[in-house]
């Protein structure tokens, strides 16, 4: 197998790199590329996955222009993109193809949670490293977590906790919740009830609605929520469901004089389609690309705009961050051996355009955070105001809970 070959090169590369490891950055990468297999729903979930791939391509370009993977003797990083068919069945087959035919060093990606979980289990079974970039489900790092699976994006619990931390001071007690009827929606609601219940005495949920994903009957749903006369609304709908819900709610006055807390709604993927109907003052998690000015973020935004003639989405920034994490991992592992890569990821800190991101060892969840703020319209452009970056490290599952969940 090529693995032997790789490790021999790695030794040579490692020796060569010891001298120049951290000073690398001059000249472009050379040698055989180090392949990483990336699968995602580029076809079915194109709105998220294509900006994500753009972000990755930009980062890989920059990494290779700056000398490639110093830890592997300056070899260039190559990401091989594959459609995962948006079903676990297809995804596992494609992963197999990447591992056996393309000889990738490890696999990354997936957007849908069930695809991510299937890949994680595949990784566990085949002893392949899997870097889950986008799936949100908490199971990935908790109950179904395994030593081979690392997750980048803040999961459902983390994002919900960010919102609860931002909203609990309002002291609202009567809540209505609306969420798409699948795991993500159910978990978010469960986390919300649990965290809000602990933070606000007298907290109660007076109405719950779980429309089927992509098929919300907005009128009936808004009517059912309004009927319960809540003081606050927790929304987990996104995409077309969200737009329909917002329009209906705006016309019927559902959001007037109510605190609305909404998961992911600040992400440009979901916020931009709301257009001039963007409600003012919803507390959301998201990403305001043009306003973030820390950690050289605007340089990324400029480069992205120049290359793709489009503003970055949340997918873009996530996609941009990941290859740098991969680079740093290789620089630390100095090997493409799975065990070495796993060891390298644990506790690895990467400087990113969002700030430092550490891969927490205990649950193999990164501390990448998200921006929490309020929705608003700037001219005609929906965006966020009063936002701040919440470091993922502040909202992770307590270590005791992780230990209990992962001990199986």
């Amino acid at each position: 197998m090529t693995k032997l070959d790789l490790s021999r090169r790695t030794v040579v590369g490692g020796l060569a790199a010891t001298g120049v490891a951290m000073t690398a950055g001059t000249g472009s990468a050379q040698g055989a590329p180090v392949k990483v297999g990336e699968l995602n729903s580029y076809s079915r979930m194109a709105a998220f996955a294509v900006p994500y791939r753009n972000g990755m391509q930009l980062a890989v370009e920059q990494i290779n222009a700056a000398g490639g993977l110093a830890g592997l003797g300056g070899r260039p990083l190559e990401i091989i993109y594959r459609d995962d068919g948006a079903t676990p069945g297809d995804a596992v087959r494609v992963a197999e193809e990447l591992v056996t035919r393309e000889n990738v060093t490890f696999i990354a990606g997936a957007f849908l949670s069930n695809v991510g979980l299937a890949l994680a289990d595949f990784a566990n079974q085949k002893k392949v490293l899997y870097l889950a970039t986008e799936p949100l489900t908490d199971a990935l790092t908790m109950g179904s977590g395994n030593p081979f699976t690392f997750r980048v994006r803040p999961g459902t619990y983390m994002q919900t906790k960010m919102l609860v931390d931002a909203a609990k001071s309002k002291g609202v007690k009567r809540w209505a919740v609306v969420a798409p009827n699948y795991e993500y929606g159910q978990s978010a609601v469960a986390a919300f009830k649990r965290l809000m219940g602990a933070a606000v005495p007298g907290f109660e949920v007076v109405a719950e609605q779980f429309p089927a994903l992509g098929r919300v009957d907005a009128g009936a749903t808004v009517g059912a929520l309004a009927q319960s006369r809540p003081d606050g609304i927790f929304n987990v709908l996104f995409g077309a469901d969200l737009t329909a819900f917002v329009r209906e709610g705006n016309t019927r006055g559902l959001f007037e004089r109510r605190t609305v807390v909404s998961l992911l709604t600040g992400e440009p993927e979901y916020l931009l389609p709301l257009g001039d109907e963007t409600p003012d003052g919803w507390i959301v998690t998201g990403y305001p690309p043009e306003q973030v000015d820390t950690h050289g973020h605007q340089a990324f935004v400029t480069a992205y705009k120049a290359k793709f003639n489009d503003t970055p989405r949340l997918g873009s920034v996530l996609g941009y961050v990941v290859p740098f994490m991969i680079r740093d991992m290789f620089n630390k592992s100095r090997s493409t051996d799975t065990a070495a890569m796993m060891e390298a990821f644990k506790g690895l800190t990467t400087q990113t355009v969002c700030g430092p991101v550490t891969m927490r060892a205990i649950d193999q969840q990164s501390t990448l955070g998200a921006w929490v703020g309020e929705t608003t319209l700037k001219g005609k452009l929906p965006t966020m105001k009063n936002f701040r970056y919440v470091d993922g490290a502040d909202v992770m599952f307590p270590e005791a809970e992780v230990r209990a969940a992962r001990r199986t």
Partner: protein
Amino acid sequence: MDFSFFVIQALSGLASASALFVIASGLTIVFGVTRIVNFAHGSFYMLGAYMAVTIVPWLLEFDRSPTLFFVGVLASAMVVGVLGVIMEVVLLRRIYRVPELFQLLATFGVVLIVQDVVLKIWGPVDITGPRAPGMRHGVEILGQRFPAYELFLIFVGPAVLGALLLIMHKTRFGVLIRAATQDREMVGALGVNQAMLFTGTLFLGAFLAGLGGALQIPRLPANTGMDLSIITEAFVVTVIGGMGSVPGAFIAALIIKMLEAFGILIFPKITLVLVFLLMAVVLVVKPWGLMGKPEVASGRAVLPEGILNLKGFSRNETVVWVVLTLALLLVPILGDTYKVKVGIEIMVFALAAFSLNLLIGNGGIVSFGHAAYFGVGAYAAGLLVTGPLKAPMELALVAAPLAGGLAAALFGYFIVRLHGIYLAMLTLAFAQITYAIFFQWVEVTGGDNGVVGVWPSRWAATREVYFYVVAVLALTSIVALRHLFYTPFGYTLRAARDSANRADAIGIDVKTHRWLAFIVAGAAAGLAGGLYSFSKGSIDPTMISIAMSIDFLMMILTGGIQTVMGPLVGTAVFHSVKDFFMPLTDFWRFFLGVSIIAIVLIFPKGVVGALEGLRERMGRRAPSPTTPPAVARETA
């Protein structure tokens, strides 16, 4: 529940019902006349919305008037109507003579193509259309605000219904539509230009779908998931109302949306399954839908669409199949692990497809929900292994066919009482109900995340060994199923398919035989599902989804339902095509769709059907000098 809320909720239900009816009416008309189960109807709906978010804002640039808004909406619907005509002329017209199921296959190809074309033209981001000028506001009703646009929508449905009834009863075109709905052959025999009639019908159908989509833009953003989100609902409406019945569709849409508006108050998660529950209940009670009539043709002896002449293997064929089997068995020795993986999948799907063809090709029982039994088998196996029992793989693989067979026995009991498209839709309804159960029962099934950790026993853990486990089980099952075709049981099923009445008259218990076939097929699919779950390592509801059922249909249709072995070839071809295009391009659905349509146009009897046709022609042209042709064909 106070009165004002009741009124508002009812109005919401009416508005949604009205919108749904506009879409479903087109579907029911097209089905009534052409007998085509037009999957592309949802695509027309989506195109209507995309056209509208393109045309309407452009028009509103000139003047923000309600008139221009509706001009834009109608223009969008017209464009979509023209697209419907193009589909009819370019595609459907060529395949009216092929089995009805093939037309379904072709329209599904169109669905795949449109999905990627829309993605290419309009991009992946949802496009939010403008609100209707003059109808942005809410109207105060009993102290609650209700959107003016939805008040308007409430009247659109009845208006469209009125217009359609007028067309149906007062114009020649409408009279012909009604006549063709009642008896298509008779209309043709009377010298009516069917081509024109069908083209006109497709225009009307696509126009209504486009109108439905365009009218949605003030409520919904145009998005790439619209087609599939509406198509099943539209089908359900037409089936509950009675296929071909426009007033029936209206009543069905009303019932569904009213039940939904109030149902969600008691069961907040009901939207997932409500329509299918309702459809199942209606079909069990009223086999032809609320206002449908038994098909005239259902009592008539028509050339069946399945296996006609049952032939054994000729010597050459035996050689070919033995060689193929041996080649397959050599895959783990000669091929790489990925080939082994693909080989496993093809064998598993081949078994599922073969069992489906026992129903469709041999029994005339068209199932749109075969994934239900496949999925039940997969879940039974997966849950046994991962659940509290921690059973071994061997036990799970025994349980899988039992579970599949049990589910088939339960659902089949109701299903085999129906006929034709209604039967097909009931299979779909049961499949969706099964899907909803596994989707919703999170504590046991893990919901949509499914359950992971379904791996083979230690001795079969390597891919190669598991390949042979699958090979032994799948191939023996296929051989056993194939044997069934040749037994008296197989002949009885075909008799019941070709003429239920005559079969009944000579003392065959038609229902019981069909039920037994359903159970056998369900068990085989269940075994396939169990084998599949161990090859993937996980189970999740996509294994029961409509998409999976459609994949199975595609496989047997690609191979040809008129042949016994066709489904096996079809599975290999379909899977290979998909596997070929998926790594190649983001637009793999486009190429899959084009391949499907190409297969329909080039091989209207499926790949194997075409091969057999070719062989027969060759045989006729150049009869072997030693054996007379008749004898040759008998032994062939």
